[in-house]
């Protein structure tokens, strides 16, 4: 069996790595040196890591972020989280069947004091917001420690293979997220004032104004004067039948496996949620060579950027709007998904069930801020700022900008004489986080300005811009050497329009994050102009003389044509340019070509038996508590979540209430309990579980 590793990727380098042996339940397998255990298992086609001690149900990856314990395995006798532990040569890894056994320890345990460290600023999170803040802090000579739980700075940027929106000036628009991430990381790592702690998890802001941090496996206690919370967001989960099967997880976990660890955790993916996160995950799946069976969105329109959605549709991924997931089917892991049409009140429309074969379901139904550190700092009485998703959920481009603002605020706390934060920064921050506008369908508005001669024939060369929705994005307008693309209405949020000269440099084509610009060249033939199309799934190779099925903006077919050439250009940054000839009547309509065949989306016609026990979907994954159990307690009159926890254990597990809180609130809602009558669960240390021995030995 070949390994589930990504061997070619259109954007990411796939480095050669040393292979080392390890054992999985006595079978010898190969991992890559220093690989994370969960990825090594996925590479070897293993996605069930054990069975839950409560109900014997299968467990696998869920958060891929060390937050829960669904992926627990026993490595060299010690129960560990597979997603946070590196595999070692000849390591014996075993599945956890029920409760793990704690190994005997023969040698005496080293005991030493924990190092106490003071700092002016503690930045929690080295993603777009934290790094941007750190750069400001560095530039103004304030001392800071930045902690990040990953071994590489950049946060979720390092998982983003697509080019970014926003503007070049403010948020590096047109650059790929992964490159922005490493650029910002480099700046921070080279800085003199910022102490970078990688593989370091902030565990809690204690009330004695100290922050416990597990720094690369060694516990430290940090006393900061100011905390900047840039810890990002976590994904929301959903209630549906079968939601605890192995093979159901968030888009963040998926991107970690695929774009960081370069493994293919799935061959057939279905995505729930049509926001940018879900849509981009689908795009990343295609770039990883994973079939995307479909995407379901509960609203009548995807909430993500239209250009993102269109990219996916054009490549051949069906998008089911006004559809919701009804069930994940399978015995231990997912073998199919059932979705159903829903009405405007989100009620299921009988008879609209559709079941598709798939082995993995991504849940991308929204994010919520990791706000704990802010609250903890406040209650401890430490001055705290927040930025990025930890402050407000928005795009990474916005996180970078408001990180910059937060950074300067921190500087001003220490050096009040520093310049005021320019009003224009706040305005930009607002613009960058603005949601997508309505879709323009007025043809007068959307038809490109074309060079037409007196007899109606088109001539010359010019870009066709298929951008119909106002989003904060303008790199096409700033990259054009002829300044021929202008933003209509607003310099960032407006719609771009071509008006002027074009010398065919292709820069606008390759910088557009939405791949929404084509170039038409009538200079050689007015009847059959040459068409230039951007292409980013070069893992599926397109070459001269291939036939491609052209599509319009929405993915509707426009005929087949032959490829004249397909290659990267000097400035295209891994975006390929596919050249073909098309009849003039469709030249302005073609946007892309399909790569995924229709047969990928295989609807299962035979009836999938969905049992009719109501409410047996899981609310608390950690403790395997069902919606029915919670609903029963609510109906008994319990409105104090702490009491529900006491009785049912919902929220008492390793993730500490991070996943089930929203789902429980939905049940209160459904039972018509007013929000004001619900008493929230009390949050307590620790943020993630840590072995007791770490607190006993500071390595000193």
């Amino acid at each position: 069996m070949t390994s589930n590793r990504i061997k070619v990727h259109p954007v990411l380098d796939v480095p050669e790595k040393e292979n080392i042996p390890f054992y999985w339940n006595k079978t010898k397998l190969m991992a890559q040196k220093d690989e994370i255990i969960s990825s090594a298992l996925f590479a070897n086609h293993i996605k069930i890591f054990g069975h839950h001690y409560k109900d014997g149900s299968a467990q696998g990856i869920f958060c891929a972020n060390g937050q829960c314990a669904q992926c627990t395995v026993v490595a060299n006798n010690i129960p560990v989280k597979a997603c946070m532990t590196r595999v070692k040569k000849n390591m014996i890894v075993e599945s956890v069947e029920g409760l793990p056994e704690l190994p005997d320890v023969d040698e005496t345990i080293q005991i030493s004091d924990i190092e106490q460290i003071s700092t002016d600023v503690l930045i929690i999170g080295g993603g777009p917001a934290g790094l941007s803040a750190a750069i400001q802090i560095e530039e103004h000579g304030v001392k800071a420690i930045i902690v990040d739980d990953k071994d590489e700075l950049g946060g979720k940027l390092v998982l983003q293979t697509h080019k970014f929106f926003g503007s070049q000036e403010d948020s590096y628009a047109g650059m790929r997220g992964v490159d922005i991430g490493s650029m910002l990381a480099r700046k921070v790592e080279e800085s003199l004032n910022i102490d970078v702690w990688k593989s370091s998890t902030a565990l809690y802001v204690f009330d004695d104004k100290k922050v416990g941090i597990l720094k690369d496996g060694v516990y430290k206690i940090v006393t900061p004067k100011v905390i900047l919370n840039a810890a990002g967001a976590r994904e929301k989960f959903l209630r549906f039948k079968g939601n605890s099967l192995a093979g159901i997880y968030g888009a963040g976990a998926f991107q970690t496996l695929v774009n960081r660890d370069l493994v293919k955790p799935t061959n057939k993916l279905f995505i729930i949620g049509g926001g940018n996160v879900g849509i981009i995950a689908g795009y990343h799946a295609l770039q990883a060579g994973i079939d995307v069976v479909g995407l379901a969105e509960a609203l009548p329109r995807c909430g993500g950027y239209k250009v993102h959605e269109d990219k996916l549709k054009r490549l051949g991924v069906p998008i089911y709007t006004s559809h919701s997931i009804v069930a994940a089917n399978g015995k231990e892991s997912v073998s199919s998904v059932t979705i159903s049409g829903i009405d405007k009140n989100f009620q299921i429309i009988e008879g609209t069930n559709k079941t598709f074969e798939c082995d993995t379901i991504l849940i991308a139904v929204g994010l919520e801020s990791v706000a704990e550190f802010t609250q903890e700092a406040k209650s401890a009485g430490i001055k705290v700022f927040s930025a990025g998703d930890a402050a407000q959920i928005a795009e990474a481009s916005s996180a970078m900008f408001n990180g910059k603002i937060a950074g300067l605020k921190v500087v001003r706390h220490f050096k009040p004489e520093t310049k005021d934060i320019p009003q224009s920064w706040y305005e930009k921050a607002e613009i960058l986080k603005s949601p997508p506008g309505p879709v323009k369908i007025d043809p007068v508005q959307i038809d490109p300005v074309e060079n037409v001669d007196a007899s109606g024939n088109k001539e010359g060369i010019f870009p066709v811009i298929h951008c119909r929705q106002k989003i904060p994005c303008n790199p096409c307008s700033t990259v054009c050497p002829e300044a021929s693309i202008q933003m209509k209405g607003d310099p960032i949020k407006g719609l771009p329009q071509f008006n002027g000269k074009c010398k065919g440099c292709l820069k606008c084509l390759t910088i557009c994050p939405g791949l929404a610009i084509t170039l038409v060249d009538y200079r050689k033939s007015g009847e059959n102009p040459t068409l230039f199309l951007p292409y980013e799934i070069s893992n599926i190779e397109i070459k001269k003389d291939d036939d491609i099925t052209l599509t319009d903006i929405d993915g509707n077919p426009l005929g087949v044509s032959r490829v004249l050439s397909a290659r990267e250009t000097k400035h295209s940054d891994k975006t390929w340019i596919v050249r073909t000839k098309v009849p003039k009547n469709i030249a302005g309509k073609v946007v892309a070509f399909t790569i995924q065949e229709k047969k990928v989306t295989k609807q299962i016609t035979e009836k999938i038996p969905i049992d009719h026990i109501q409410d047996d979907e899981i609310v608390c994954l950690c403790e395997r508590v069902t919606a029915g159990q919670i609903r029963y307690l609510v109906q008994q009159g319990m409105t104090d979540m702490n009491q529900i926890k006491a009785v049912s254990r919902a929220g008492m597990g390793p993730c500490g209430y991070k996943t089930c809180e929203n789902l429980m609130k939905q049940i209160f809602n459904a039972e018509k309990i007013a929000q004001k009558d619900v008493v929230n669960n009390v949050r307590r240390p620790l943020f993630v579980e840590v072995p007791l021995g770490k607190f006993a030995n500071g390595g000193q």
Partner: protein
Amino acid sequence: MKTYDVIIIGAGSVGVPAAMSMAQNKLKVLVIDALASVGQGQNKKAIGGIRATHSDKGKILTALRSIEIFSTWKETHGHNIGWMQNGYSFPAYTSEGAQKLKDLMKIQKSFNLDIDWLSPEEYCEIIPGINKENLKGSTFSPKDGSASPLLAINAFYSKSLEYGARYRFREKVKTITISNDKDITVKTDKSSYCAHKVINAAGSYAKDIGKLINLDLPVEPDSHEGAITEPVQRFFGPMIVDLRPLKDPATQDSANFYFYQNNEGQVIFCLTPQHLMKGDASESTSIFLPQVAKRMVSLFPKLANLKVRRTWRGQYPMTPDGFPIVGETREFPNFINAIGMCGQGYMIGPGIGELLTRIVTCELKADDMDVLKHFNLYRNFSGAEQFK
């Protein structure tokens, strides 16, 4: 206004089992609590240990009855409250420590408590992997045990509702109007209630309730941090209480600490630091985990690989001598205290609850009179509990 037989202030470790016992005895009982549900004060902070091996008749008898209630709960009432008869052990690592424990054992044995001295070898058999260096042996009382405070109080609560007890949550008692010839009126921030008798079972807030009728009650809470780990397969039996005193170099800046593996397989632990926080603090501190972890992994190295899940701070409503205060007050015989449980309200609560019923129904037995002598509000508080 409806007149209750009894109003209990506090739906915690004492108030809820008391309400259950009284309702079972056909008393009309109302429980008032400022918080939103049962056990939201210190009950949920308790680690769940239940022992009868105390050092005085009052606690021993009350705890013995409590153990009976906890241990037979499932067969009597059906709810799982996580009861385990896993025993208690107090290991000694100094000769003086061993001697002190052995002296206490004499008193305990005089009450027919099942407790014995284990040699280091015998002790290592029930706690495989415990540090043998300097181990002088340990007490072991196999009849003691543990149960989940969370499940237990909710079981008592649901049973008490079945027997007819009433509860008012999210109501703070503001005034108590009391005289010896009329029923008592208890006014909360939301309503007014009337009863023949009032029981103060307000735990950490007992003193504040006393103040409402100008009673100065010697109860001051101090607080300790506790924590719980991930669950693993059972790897040791009894509660381990390390009583080494502050001055021992091995213990640095903390006094006793204790831990056990609960019915879920999770290890729960708690430590008494040198500097106790007074009052109703619930702060988490950075000091606790390193302090307790050093002692735990020295004592039991195997624990080093066990992941800590959550920590919290809970209060011990302390009296000057470490013994509870239970009984009628001289000024107002209808105002009864069941306070100052000194961190043991959970384990003796069910026994105290029945005792309170007998106070209310005037059915006290001879033993009860002895017990109440120990718990008398008007005692001389200069003595000190040896064996908290």
